[in-house]
Each structure stands twice: as structure tokens, then as C-alpha cells.
């Protein structure tokens, strides 16, 4: 499902124009981004929590070039699904 499909469905259900739906969606993602910048974590009920995790620097090896590398420190956005969401998803059949 792409974002455009998502917006059309949203507009149908909320009984508003697609432009409005698109604007609000953009604003919500912006707020999510701001919160991540400030607080490092936030949770959406029944979906899961987003958090920023720090990965320490580590050694690695590039087998094609046969070079040893030292990878630097990195911050990563981590999503953990809530148990409710997980249980719901579990038994959906494979497609």
C-alpha cells in the first residue's frame, strides 16, 4: 500500500477532501519527527513505540575488497511493535 492509496482511503472515511487528508498526514509525520528530536522516544497506542538507539563503534570486514573497517558510532531509529499488534499480525496467513 502506497501513501497515495492511504490518503484516498483516509479521505473517504473522514469525509473530507484528499488535500486536507494529505496536509494533516504531513503535519503528523512532522510532529513525530520533532518529538523524536526532543525526547528520543514516543509510543503510539496499539501500534508500538519508536525509540532512538545508539550503536557503538565496531570492527567489520569487507570480504570482496578484503579490507578491515572501523565503523563509527551511529544512532538508529528502532520500532518495537506492541504485543497487541504482534498478536493480531501473528496468525495472518502467508501470501
Amino acid at each position, binding site marked *: *500500500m*502506497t*501513501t497515495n492509496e*492511504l490518503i484516498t*482511503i*483516509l479521505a473517504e*472515511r*473522514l469525509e*473530507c477532501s484528499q488535500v486536507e*487528508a494529505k*496536509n*494533516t*498526514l*504531513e*503535519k*503528523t*509525520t*512532522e*510532529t*513525530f*519527527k*520533532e*518529538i*523524536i*528530536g526532543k*525526547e*528520543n*522516544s*514516543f*509510543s*503510539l*497506542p*496499539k*501500534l*508500538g513505540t519508536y*525509540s*532512538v538507539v545508539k550503536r557503538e563503534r565496531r*570492527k*567489520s570486514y569487507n570480504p570482496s575488497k578484503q*579490507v*578491515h*573497517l*572501523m*565503523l*563509527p*558510532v*551511529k*544512532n*538508529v*531509529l528502532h*520500532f518495537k*511493535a506492541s504485543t497487541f*499488534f*504482534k498478536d*493480531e*499480525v*501473528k496468525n*495472518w496467513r*502467508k*501470501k
Partner: protein
Amino acid sequence: MDNKVTLQEIKDSIVEKTGDSKIFVDTFIHELLNIIKEGLQRDGQVNLSGLGKFKLKWVEIQNARNPITGETIEVPAHNKIIFKPEKKMRIFVNRKFNHLTSKEITVKKVNTPKINEETIMKESIIYGQNDVPPNPNEKNDDLSEDKKKKYIIPIIGIIILLLILLLLFLFLNKKKDKNDSPIAPKLTIVDSTQTTVDSTETDKDKDTEIEKEEKEEADVSDDMVYNETSIIHKVKAGNTLWSLANKYYNNAPLWPNIYRKNLENVIEPDIIFPGMVIEIPNLEGTGHALTKQDSFNIAEGYYLSYLAYKKFNLKDAKNYLRIAKRFNTTVEENKK
């Protein structure tokens, strides 16, 4: 994160930005989350521009282990949710460390075996060719000879240098000890430590040793005097009872036999001071073939060391008692 952001706060901030009514935003977010789930169910994938991509992954049956109880549990096949953030999002989250880049490191361990393998391969190929076809031997020989020449010249140079150094050392030693012949008596001493020598030989050794002690105390590694029953050893830095037992008996765990004889000097068996004079009793047998009397003595030594350690409240003191018992039981077994 003590200050958790509630959903209400998120909604409020959205209301501020868009200017919509609260109810609209409320229903909007509710529907958004619902649609994400529905989209996952329908396509197994949802793209949300500005945030990232939700994906479903099918995991087959697998065996897991409970690390506490050690039981193996069968985890049934199930769907797993994966979220991959957008590139913009990744860069934003990592904004602190974006300027850092990966660096190359040199690791020595990996390089050495490669070279060895290559050389081995080359050598094996050359030998293989030499064995099978007789005619092309000449070319290969030329190649190998060239290689040999390359190797031989530096090797010969090194050998000559070593020889010169050896000669120099010998000359210097001769100049130092013109009166004594230095190498021969040293060798006899080494022999005497390994095998208990007759009394006549020991007398000779004594004389030479005394002379040496007077002349070069610093150069001789260990100062010692031989009796019929025991050896007297001057402790040097780095010596322990353990190492002395290893040296004189060729069996380090027999050290309590030395400790038993030196109760007055050695207070704690772990500690000896350089300059101490220690009496090392000879064994009736050898280090690896003890007689009854020897094992009895060693058991006694272990018992004494147990007492000493007990004084200092060491936890491992009991172990020495156990070892002492082991040496005693061997005596009993021998009697039977």
C-alpha cells in the same frame, strides 16, 4: 526516558499546526493506525512518506531455548512486523554523528597465512612438475636455482656473522678465566644436580665451587653446596619453593618436602626472600618414583603447610589437608 510523551500531547501539537478541530485529529489518528493494519493485512507492506515502511515477514517453525530452564520450545510459524525508516528519517536521527565515516584498519594476523599459502602452492607446483615430466626439468631447475641463489647469499652471510660472534665470545671468556677451565666444571655441576654423585666427586666439586663463589658470585646462577643428605641453596629473586622443587626434584608439587626442612626460616610457604639459605633434602627415590619414606615426608610437609595457611586464614587451606591425605593413602596402599 522519564518524560513519556502521551498521545494527547501529540494530538494537541497537531491541532496547533493544522488548525483543525480536536475531534477531527482524534478520528484521523485512529483511522490512520487502523489503515496501516489493514494495509499490512492486504498487501503485507505499507509506505508512509515522511516516516518509513512497514513490512510483514513470515517466519518458519523454529526451535528456541529457554536460557533459564534450558528447555527447548518450538516456536510456531508466525508473521513478524518490520519497520524500516526512510532515508531522510535515518539522517535526521543520526544528525549527531553524520560527519563520521568508516576507516580502514590494518590487521596483521590475516596477512601472514595468505603469503604462506601462496608460497606453499608455488612450491608444490614446482615439485609436481619436476616429478612427472623429465624433459622440462632444466627450465624448472634454472628457476629453482635462481631462487636458491637469492636465498643462499643472505643465509650464508648470517651464518658467517654468527660464527664471528661465537668466536669473539669464546676469546673474551678465555681472557676472563685463564686459570680455570670454565666450561668443564659447570657441566659437571649440572650432572650432579640430576644424579646424586659419589662422595669423592662431590668433594672435587665442592673445591671448585668454593673457588668460584669467591671469584664470581654475581655470574653463577645459583649458589649451592652439596651434602650427602641435602643441598643448601641460596635464594635468588624470582625463586619460589615451587620452582626449586621443580628444579631439584623435577616435580613441582613436591615443594612441601623443602618447606618441612625450613620451618624456622620460612614463615609462610608462599614467601621466600632473596639471600635466604634453604636446605633442600634429597629424595630416596626420584621425583617421579617416590619411596614410602618420601611420600610420608611429603604428606607431613603438606600437613605443616596446611597449618601455616590456616594461621593466615586462607580459604584454600583445606585443600592442602586433602593432598596430605592423598599422599598418606598411597603409603597405605603400598603397605597392602
